[in-house]
């Protein structure tokens, strides 16, 4: 016969002491994670803020310069009369341009694909696999693949465009087309988002569709009045993840533009400039300031999304 034993607090221990004992035990169990978090995350985050106020080449002692790094980045007068570091602003522009293309593009395409994949047709599993496969390809491999696809002379895309009488651009050499090309490549890898949408779609109660059908709603009305409202929490989740992801994109442009952003720095993303400052120009303080500005931008946009979510995100049962 199995017996269970529970350790009891020594006699005479007060309630408060018992509570503290429990807290102590809890903390002891949490301590490996807490220690790791404090040493490997919290401390570097704190230090990076301090370094953002310093001139800090990694091999030298940091010299405190106050807000000088922020001043240089944001409002110091440039030789042309404009304000701030022109390369910084260019990288902000490039990153936002990409986010504006890739984020809504990714959300719409993945939603559309998820709806198609939700239709019961023969070979459904095969289609789902095909859509998901690109997410398994490492970024380096997919970047190399897309570099060939985008090749102006020999690439498949321009060859197909030529077949229909269109002259394809120099996707990776034209300042106009570089960011859209990267956005297209990103949208190709939306398999993960599609899976999340699929899960959301399957969570929509069937009764709602039945009720809508009884009320005479057609396919579009069901989509607009049932599916989309019920999916808004999932869309919201993907939006937040998308904001964070697109503003921090690094590996694909690093590979496809050789790290220098290509022609006229048209693909010089925020993270590329941050990386260059930290690890190539030895300006760790400047890079830290950039990292904090990026954090603030992401926080602001996420906050905005949360604020607006009250108006368009519908949770079941509310």
């Amino acid at each position, binding site marked *: 016969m199995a017996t269970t034993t529970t350790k009891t607090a020594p006699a005479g221990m007060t309630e408060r002491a018992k509570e503290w004992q429990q807290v102590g035990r809890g903390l002891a169990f949490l301590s490996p994670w807490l220690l790791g978090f404090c040493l490997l995350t919290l401390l570097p985050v704190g230090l990076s803020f301090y370094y953002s106020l310093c*001139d800090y*080449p*990694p*091999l*030298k*002692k940091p*010299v405190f*310069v106050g807000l000088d790094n922020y001043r240089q980045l944001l409002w110091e007068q*440039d*030789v*042309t009369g404009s304000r701030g570091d*022109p390369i910084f602003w260019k990288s902000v522009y490039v990153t936002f341009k990409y986010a504006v293309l890739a984020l809504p593009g990714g959300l719409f395409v993945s939603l559309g694909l998820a709806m198609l994949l939700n239709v019961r047709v023969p070979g459904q599993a095969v289609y789902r696999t095909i859509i998901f496969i690109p997410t398994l390809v490492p970024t380096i491999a997919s970047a190399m693949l897309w*570099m060939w696809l985008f*090749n*102006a*002379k*020999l690439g498949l895309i321009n060859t197909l465009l030529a077949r229909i009488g269109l002259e394809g651009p*120099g*996707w*990776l*050499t*034209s*300042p106009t087309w570089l960011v859209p090309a990267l956005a297209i490549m990103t949208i190709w890898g939306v398999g993960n988002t599609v899976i999340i949408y699929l899960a959301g779609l399957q969570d929509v109660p069937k009764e709602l569709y039945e009720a809508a059908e009884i009320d005479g709603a057609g396919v579009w009305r069901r989509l607009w009045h049932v599916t989309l409202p019920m999916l808004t929490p999932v869309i919201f989740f993907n939006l937040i993840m998308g904001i964070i992801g697109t503003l921090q994109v690094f590996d694909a442009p690093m590979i496809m533009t*050789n790290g*220098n952003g290509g*022609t*006229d*720095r048209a693909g010089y993303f925020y993270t590329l400039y941050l990386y*260059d400052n930290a*690890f*190539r*120009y*030895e300006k760790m303080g400047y890079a830290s300031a950039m990292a904090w500005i990026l954090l603030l931008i992401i926080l602001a946009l996420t906050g905005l999304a949360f604020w607006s979510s009250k108006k368009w995100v519908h949770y079941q049962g509310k």
Partner: protein
Amino acid sequence: MHYIKPVLLTVFLLAMLALLAFGPRGTGGLPKEVQAGVDQGKITVVTYWEKWTGKEGEQMGEIVKDFNATVGKEKGIFIKYLSISEIDKKTLIATAAGVPPDIAGVWDTQVSQFSALNALEPLDDIAAEYGIKPGYYKGVYWKGCTYEGTLYALISTPATVALHYNKRLFNEVGLDPDKPPRTIRELDDYAAKLDVVQRDARGNITRIDRTGYLPLEPGWFIQHTGYWFGGSLYDEKSHQMTMTSPPMVAAFEWIRSYTERLGPKSVMDFKSGIGNNFDSPQNPFLTGTVAMVQQGTWMANYIEKLKPSMNRWNVPGTQAEQNAAREDLLRRLNERATQLAAVKVERAAAGTTDARRAELAAKEEELRREAWVLRKQFRDMCEWAAAPFPSVGKPESPYEPAIDTPTHAGFDVLTIPRGCKNKRQAFEFIAYVNRQEVMEKLCSLHCKNSPLTKVSEEFLLTHPNAYIEVFDKMAESKNAFGIPPIPIWTEVSDEVGILAANTYQMIGPPPREALAIAEKRLQRKVDRFFDRQAIRDREEAAAAAKGK
């Protein structure tokens, strides 16, 4: 029974501790006998990080192996060789963390940057002990190894940059392959003759099928174009950027002139089409799409690897027969070179009589003549050739070079990061690499010229690059130039590179204006670097004074 759990736990913990304390140890990749020597305190392990991977990395590995088997064995030093990527960043981070390698094989671009950050050990005194002094290297290389007068690096392999051109295409358009262009004006004329373009009804170029020359193909040295015009980016004495000097403006206007002549769209379409294919059979110089390129000593290696037929030009027969003919020629050349070396040794030997010396002198002359004839045949088998890159012409006579044999001399270096554990032992290896015979072996394997003042005839005769004398002569030139000693060179290089690319693609303001803006921006960055360096130095001096 309640004590079973604590007892088991204690036993388990004790076993773990015992295993940690007395358990088997990994040898850290060291051979057993070396590990034994280390344990006995007889062998010092020197960690050497090198950027080369692949074949070049393996070839350096051979040198390391030779050292470990000879000098290392004798002096109790074992080089632990690690070929790693992104070595510049890793070395810097490891140095900052206080655990640097003993030797770091980095690029010339890092010498100023790392020295200014106090990341490297100065080498003047220790190098002098080994007889490595300024005259030991060709001037441009010695200068490149120093920062503000102090030696911080020694060379592993160097290179110079030359004009590489396709002799077959020269023949096709009626140009003499033995008379490459000597001035920029001549280069432009040749390029126009070699261009194959398509035009619309109004005569505008709509498509480039082949180009004689394009400044951005591959454009690896585009930042340095000003030097071929007699200008420079930076004045190291005054720490001033000099990008608006007339030669610099002329250089950038020349870069732009190609796009103006060929049309921005055609140039961009052409560039898009050829892609970024240096290490590929699609390399436009190898496919004959670009007839002349600015490239370094290493190009010969890539030609042999990617398009060997360019090294078997005008050789009759099947591919196998061509290979056999080339191998036979190289075998005979090596034989002559070896015989020549042996004769020289015997002639110089103390016991050799005068009569024998005279006999050997005649034999030496004959072998030399034969060897150089074979060398010429080796060169004639090349569809390509190399010549000093043309420089600006004299104002009164644009087809007469105004600058004698200018070139960009780049190099890979061996450095000792500050705070390493085994400086002296590390330098023993660096000195070994800098021995003439070792340096020549490595440079020959890597298809590079020698940085040393003394170059053996055998090195030149047996070198895999058929035009090695051209590169060697360029390195000796007083107009050879290296990376400007700017402590923020990486940033400057990026900025000037983008500026040159924009100028080439006619993006942004005209060259004079664009250079003026870039000069002011970069000057501000250079000034800021030195200002902050001064603050830091003052603080360090104050802290040191306080410590005393």
